[in-house]
């Protein structure tokens, strides 16, 4: 090799390469995190699409879903195989979502959105209390077949859990999009959200559709919860993640499925990068700053569905 100059150049190039690798690593981890935010946001959007209400307990439903899966699957609890436990947890959470709509939410049918916001915030506390009394407040770890395994494509470390998260999220988003675009119930749900009375008149069973959608959002919350649990321990307070996911849903525009996912990904990627390159607290604030900027510049979110109100 040549003189000192070349050495320096090499070192510089290595340095750039190392920081690029680091950035790539951050982005991949961020994408996986973003997928979880996106999944919780999908739960918000589902209910918003069907009843134009916002379920502030979505984060707590995610928490409950993760705990139910843990209760079925972990070897010190019921010890069922992972797949069976997942399916059972989804069934249980479908029942929880359906039941919540049937017993509580239906009673305030037709009241202003504000009532539902307060109601669901209160329900979140109830969920947290229930999970805390059954499983305790200390962190627990969900046993999954893909936890802690890594792949090494081209010098970066990719967790298998991250890949599974990204894959499941994409599949679920596509499935939900198809559900709303093509199936009868999906279309009925959209009709019910746009004009409840008109939907009644053309024969949509609005209340039953709402119950189904709440059940479905319980299932989505379970999936999000399980994927979240693959990345670390869970405790009854992880539901607060819902606020961040909420920011994701708003950035994308409430009522838009791809928007929710995109919002989740934006938050997921920006957060670790801000944490690495920006000072202290800015990383924690970043989702909300992005959200405020989006709300001020495009009040309906990136995929806006609100237009000027007409008389």
């Amino acid at each position, binding site marked *: 090799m040549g003189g000192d100059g070349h050495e320096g150049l090499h070192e510089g190039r290595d340095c750039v390469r190392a920081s690029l690798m680091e950035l790539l690593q951050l982005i991949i981890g961020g994408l996986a995190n973003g997928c979880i935010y996106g999944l919780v946001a999908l739960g918000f959007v589902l209910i918003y699409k069907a009843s134009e209400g916002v379920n502030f307990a979505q984060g707590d439903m995610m928490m409950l879903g993760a705990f139910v899966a843990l209760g079925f699957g972990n070897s010190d609890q019921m010890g069922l195989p992972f797949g069976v436990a997942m399916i059972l947890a989804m069934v249980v959470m479908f029942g929880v979502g359906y039941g919540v709509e049937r017993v509580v939410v239906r009673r305030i049918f*037709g*009241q202003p*959105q504000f009532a539902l916001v307060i109601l669901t915030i*209160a329900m979140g*506390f109830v969920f947290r209390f229930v999970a805390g009394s059954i499983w305790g407040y200390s962190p627990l770890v969900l046993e999954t077949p893909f936890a802690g395994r890594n792949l090494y494509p081209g010098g970066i470390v990719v967790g298998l859990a991250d890949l599974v998260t990204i894959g499941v999220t994409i599949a679920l988003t596509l499935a939900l999009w198809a559900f709303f675009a093509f199936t009868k119930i999906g279309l009925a749900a959209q009709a019910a959200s746009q004009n409840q009375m008109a939907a009644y008149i053309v024969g949509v069973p609005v209340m039953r559709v709402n119950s189904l959608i709440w059940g479905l959002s319980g299932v989505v919350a379970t999936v999000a919860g399980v994927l979240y649990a693959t990345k670390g321990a869970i405790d009854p307070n992880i539901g607060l993640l819902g606020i961040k996911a909420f920011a994701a849903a708003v950035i994308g525009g409430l009522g838009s499925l791809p928007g929710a996912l995109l919002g989740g990904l934006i938050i997921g990627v920006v957060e670790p990068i801000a944490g690495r390159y920006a000072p202290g*607290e800015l990383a924690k604030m970043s989702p909300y700053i992005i959200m405020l900027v989006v709300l001020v510049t495009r*009040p309906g979110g990136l995929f806006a569905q609100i237009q000027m109100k007409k008389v």
Partner: protein
Amino acid sequence: MRIVFKKSYDRDIDLHEHGWSRAKIAVLAGIMIVLPFLVGEYYLAEATNTLIWALAGMGLMVAVGHTGQVSLGHAAFLAIGAYADSALMNAGLPFLLSFPIAGLITGIFGAIIAIPAVRMSGIYLAIATLAVFVIVEEMVIMLEPITGGVGGIMAPSIQIFGISFDRYGALQNFYWLILGVVALVAWGYANLMRSPTGRSFLAVRDSEVSARALGINVTRTKSLAFGLSTGVTGLAGALMGHYIGFYNYELFSIFISINLLLVVTIGGLGFIQGAFLGAILITAVPQAIAIARDGLNANFGIDLGSVPGLDTMIFAVILILFIIFEPTGLYGRWLKIRVWFEIFPLARRDMFRRQKSYLKTERMK
């Protein structure tokens, strides 16, 4: 039932419909003034706390109850009021100046936030205020020289004209000070609501489109309402800081925002009296739970103290029951009971039936 004979149009907007209701307010005020001589130190402190909550509740009521703007972030404005007041007092200003200035700062901050926020409707505003709350919370931690960061700060002791109004040293004086502030704000609030400005708040709440058609500047009205709301909340925050004495950012958590919402919803949305009823409930329920817990423990050996989070859970259940069964809150229920007695044999069950309503979207697609 009392018949009011109105001899001029002015009487239509009188603060009190007749002398009887004026007398009731006077009696209530009298009782509140002599309260320090009637109850002990502990209950006086609780009464002070209730008054502070009522003040904050009135602040939120302007936004939620009278203008229809839901805010999930009012704890942030409590925090701004508290820190502004403490910072100004530490800078050497007397309480008489720092207190209104703290309210003003909070109000201006709120109004500035409101200008972009009022373009958003319903749910989006709630979310934006939630975001503001999180950002303010982080800012409080960051601005360590003023706020003491995570460690927290000590609220300076209040001195007015050489008389001590310290929360611990002179609780009676502190109580009267807060009572005075609360009475003043309540009086101003009640008068505001019968002025054109207050009426435009109601018009905007009930229908933005019709309000605009009647020539009301909706954006200005909403910003003004939000600014007033945050200003009063800031005042409450300043007093809360003095009441607690030593505090950090954790005093103003998201749960405080939710408790405030609980105050206005359970008290009765759209009634000033509702803020007071809600405040009484929110300070009395933890006491009742504590008493019930001790009673159960002593008499039946059931130890509820070992169940964590029970208080929050009970609050949540109360809130759910109110939203489902009595959306007009405690004050609405009281009005119904009063009407039932006033027209005694004629009350029918369907009189208060809720009208059937259907949701209609704001989305056009």
